[in-house]
């Protein structure tokens, strides 16, 4: 299994251990992964998993827990974002599924490497992080609350204002993300993403 780094949230299949160090995660070295089994060992080589879409979940402690992954926020600090220092255009050409993401009403688009994610769930989480909703940005007092309360609150907000994520496929058609398309098929066909507010 390849070690994956990039802009994505920690891949629940391959958390990074220790202070930002890369751990060789060749399949078979289950010990390196700590308390959870490497996905490939548990389910075979395929990484595809069809998870229901738009499951209301909070940012950190929700859906991902089905893997038993530790989503302690301090893990996020150990994710090697922006390393090694290669520019985005170069990452695209190195393979990987970099696609543009635009959100309605937001002038500046972003890019996300779809192939670094293992599921629709993960992709959505990354998108939420890239495009915090207006509600999240506007709220004043939430930062004072404990982590948990904030997640409940944000969960509520998201239920009131869900994102609708669409994508353009190889044929130029715009489809709703997750519509009965297996994740791996989606990764190969997605050309760009648009989030409808």
């Amino acid at each position, binding site marked *: 299994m390849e070690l994956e780094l990039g802009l994505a949230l920690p891949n629940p299949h391959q958390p990074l251990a220790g202070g*930002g160090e890369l751990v060789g995660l060749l399949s078979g070295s289950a010990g390196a992964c700590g308390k959870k089994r490497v996905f490939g060992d548990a389910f075979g080589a395929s990484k595809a998993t069809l998870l229901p879409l738009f499951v209301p979940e909070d940012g950190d402690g929700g859906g991902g827990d089905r893997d038993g992954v530790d989503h302690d926020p301090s893990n996020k600090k150990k994710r090697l974002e922006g390393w*090694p220092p290669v*520019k985005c255009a170069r990452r695209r050409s190195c393979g990987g599924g970099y696609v543009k993401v635009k959100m309605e009403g937001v002038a500046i688009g972003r890019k996300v490497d779809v192939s670094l994610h293992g599921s629709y769930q993960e992709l959505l989480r990354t998108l939420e992080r*890239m495009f915090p909703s207006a509600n999240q940005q506007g709220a004043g007092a939430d930062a004072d609350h404990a982590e948990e309360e904030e997640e409940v609150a944000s969960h509520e907000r998201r239920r009131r204002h869900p994102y609708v994520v669409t994508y353009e496929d190889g044929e130029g058609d715009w489809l709703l993300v997750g519509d009965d398309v297996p994740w791996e098929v989606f990764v190969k066909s997605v050309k760009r993403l648009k989030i409808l507010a």
Partner: protein
Amino acid sequence: MAPAAPMGRGGSRAAPAAAAPPWHVLPDEVWEHAFSFLPADSDRGAAAAACRSWLRAERRSRRRLAVANCYAASPQDAVDRFPAVRAVEVKGKPHFADFGLVPPAWGAAAAPWVAAAADGWPLLEEISFKRMVVTDDCLEMIAASFRNFQVLRLVSCEGFSTAGLAAIAAGCRNLRELDLQENEIEDCSIHWLSLFPESFTSLVTLNFSCLEGDVNITVLERLVTRCHNLKTLKLNNAIPLDKLANLLRKAPQIVELGTGRFSADYHPDLFSKLEAAFAGCKSLRRLSGAWDAVPEYLPAFYCVCDGLTSLNLSYTTVRGPELIKFISRCKKLQLLWVMDLIEDRGLAVVASSCNKLQELRVFPSAPFDAAEQVSLTERGLVDVSASCPMLESVLYFCRRMTNEALITIAKNRPNFTCFRLCIIEPHTPDYTTHQPLDAGFSAIVESCKGLRRLSVSGLLTDIVFKSIGAHADRLEMLSIAFAGNSDLGLHYILSGCKSLKKLEIRDCPFGDKPLLANAAKLETMRSLWMSTCSLTLGACRQLARKMPRLSVEVMNDPRRRCPLDSLTDESPVETLYVYRTIAGPRFDTPACVQIV
């Protein structure tokens, strides 16, 4: 300006009778003329600091202005102080924005600069923006505001679309250069190229390599045909090989070519066509392109290899023998950018063939794959530095290094001005001795007295920073990642490095103390970036209080709003960006960025 009369031995000089006024009351025009011979901004700045009359003369005659940090001064300050500017360059986001470390909507809007320029510099001819947000409105305003506009250069910018380019094409009658480098351009399917009028023939540089959409090739051909002075043409991926051949036949005078997509199934006819087209380009000196290059086509370039001084193959996935054969024919190369697919054996060939080489960059073909597939090691860099006496600038991504190699490199090439080594896995030690790479990098800074830019990597302790602080007197930019073991490391840098302008640090165990102890140093620098270190909000507050002419920006996770007033001094700071400014705090920060 030396006094006209010579000093006599032993005392007073005989002042010539009458005419020449004492030098310090010469009219401004004389100084302005004198200053026009000072090419470097820093020299002009020094002259301006000498006295009031020089200040006045210099600033009123300044034609070229470079604003290295768009927030260091307001656009209005710039226009008021330098009313005669014809060429302006402005840079925005911090360098680490290139790697996704700067939150979206951070700032660096070009609009206020364009607006101020439109008002105060109607004769402006050149605009260059780097890492800024440029909108279509900006481009429309540029097209409408400057009658003699000639050069537009946008590097690593975003926020605009082909609609903005259409405005430039339609409105800038005297445009000479349209240079778009690595921008994010929204494709609105507007045929912007068609908007260059038929009467328009002044283009010298056209670079649209970063554009992702299609381009009307017929229109492009007509444009290229009528612009007889076209010297630089850099195409995007939408131009197929056979069309490239046609374009080259229309512009045989080309000096710099970016080929765009260089990929097609091999056909002998197409090969001959390309070969003939290249044979006609007798002036071609610089070559680049997003080559999904098919090796069989490379020999079509052989006829230009002799003259090439610059070769950018950093997007080429061609491996081994064909690549090496090609490069070995380019004996006059001064600049080579290549993927690590060249491997050590390829670099050995470069070392023996290209002894005029000045700049080498080797990029990783698989940056996120830990498995070592490519045989590129310290060996390649040692070979090149041993055999290329003019080599002064290096960017090298690899997976292993030794102190011995670095010491050898330092001994061979004391003339390095830029040395950037990126060992891909953090904390990698010398692979033979398992020691930190302190000795190796220390050798580099001790030997290369002219070093202006340095990036360090691998396993490093505070010791290397002691060397850097003590020896790197000319160092202007330093990048540090996953290095050091205590506050001392940062302290050595900030208390040494006399010429330091930009310092960027990520994932190092540096805390509050060295920052506060060296607060005054920060005002002598352009900027400091520290992310994922050990800083607290209290230290940032103290710094801001102590140094009113610094802007202290704190950024945390974009999903958490950080109303700073409610956070305690002990709260950790994820990212700190500090820069000197005469403009006071900015008001365009997004929610996750706060000015302390």
